[in-house]
């Protein structure tokens, strides 16, 4: 073998080795490239999925924030809705009084409560008929549940003095004595239930205050109160009448009124027995029922 042949073989071996190394390098680098591409594709897929999940999450967060935000002014919305109702009730009352409506209005009112044994029965009946009424209450400790139920049900809670002490007409001893009672009861209801009263019924009715009536009315006006007496009553004040008498006490005179305040007492068993018949009878005569409100024509200021 000549030198040229040996050189030729060596060159051949080297070129073969170089080619093998070249191919191996290419395969190795390609593998790395391929792996990187796969990894990137998986990552992109994960990112797309996660992006969708994030979008859903962020929509849910925005919805929850909106829902929570809607509660921020619920007390204000509540006040506005109540004011709107009173405004509409006033509009309706004016129409009725002007003879522009076929409907009549009855304000059912209950004095002297709350009472543990009977008031809930009255409230149940009013709930059953979907009627809001007005409760003229005294200051009675340990009756919180009843005050609260009256308020929560949307009835009007009104002031009937703290003690209703008519023995010797003591509550009308002076203007200050009487106004002191009104303020005491107002404060009690305000502090305990956060409810502001602005309607009063004089214990025994306003004539019971005799000569003090007008000075008291003046003072009531100064403290933001109006008062109301009544147009008709079951006559249950002495708690001695029959169910029939109570029914007739209201239904026999109600036809004379377009807007009428009915006086009852929520201590009277015969009154709650008569109440469904009274309600049905008034409905048949075209009455609807509203709770009293300060702006009503029936509230004297």
């Amino acid at each position, binding site marked *: 073998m000549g030198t040229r042949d040996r050189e030729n073989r060596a060159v*051949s071996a080297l*070129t073969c080795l*170089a080619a093998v190394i070249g191919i191996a390098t290419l395969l190795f*680098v390609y593998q790395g*490239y391929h792996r990187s591409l796969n990894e*990137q594709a998986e*990552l992109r897929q994960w990112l797309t999925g996660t*992006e969708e999940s994030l979008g859903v999450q962020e929509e849910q967060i925005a919805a929850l924030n909106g829902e929570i935000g809607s509660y921020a002014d619920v007390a204000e919305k509540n006040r506005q809705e109540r004011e*709107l109702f009173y405004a509409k009730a006033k509009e309706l009352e004016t129409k009725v009084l002007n003879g522009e409506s076929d409907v009549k209005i009855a304000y059912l009112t209950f004095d002297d409560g709350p009472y543990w044994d009977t008031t809930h029965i009255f409230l149940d009946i009013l709930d059953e008929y979907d009627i809001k009424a007005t409760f003229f209450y005294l200051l009675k400790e340990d009756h919180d549940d009843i005050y609260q139920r009256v308020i929560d049900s*949307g009835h009007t809670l009104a002031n009937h003095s703290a003690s209703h002490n008519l023995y010797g007409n003591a509550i009308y001893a002076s203007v200050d004595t009487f106004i002191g009672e009104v303020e005491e009861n107002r404060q009690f209801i305000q502090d305990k239930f956060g409810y502001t009263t602005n309607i009063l019924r004089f214990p025994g009715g306003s004539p019971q205050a005799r000569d003090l009536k007008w000075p008291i009315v003046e003072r009531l006006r100064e403290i933001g109160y109006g008062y109301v007496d009544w147009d008709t009553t079951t006559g249950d004040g002495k708690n001695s009448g029959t169910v029939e008498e109570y029914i007739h006490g209201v239904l026999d005179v109600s036809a004379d009124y377009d807007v009428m305040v009915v006086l009852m007492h929520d201590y009277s068993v015969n009154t709650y027995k008569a109440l469904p018949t009274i309600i049905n009878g008034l409905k048949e005569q075209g009455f609807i029922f509203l709770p009293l409100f300060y702006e009503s024509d029936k509230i004297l200021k």
Partner: protein
Amino acid sequence: MTGVIQKFLLLLTILCLGLSAWLFFQTTAVVKETDALRAQAAEYQERYQNNEQQLQDLQQQLKDVEAANAGALKEYRIWEHEIEKIEPYLH
């Protein structure tokens, strides 16, 4: 081995090495991009966990707010209902 084959092998080697170099640079670019995507993934992961936590907090907050305003809401519905009742008589 003939000179032709030697030349072919030499060309093949050069081609493979050239391709390898090109692929290497491509891989480097892909790796760089992947690193950027990985950083984004870490950010998404953190955002996802934060959102999950925020959702739980808000759900609890909503329950608390609902409970605290249950009375006011009930009263609001009462007025809404009372308005509906008298509305027909106003027209």
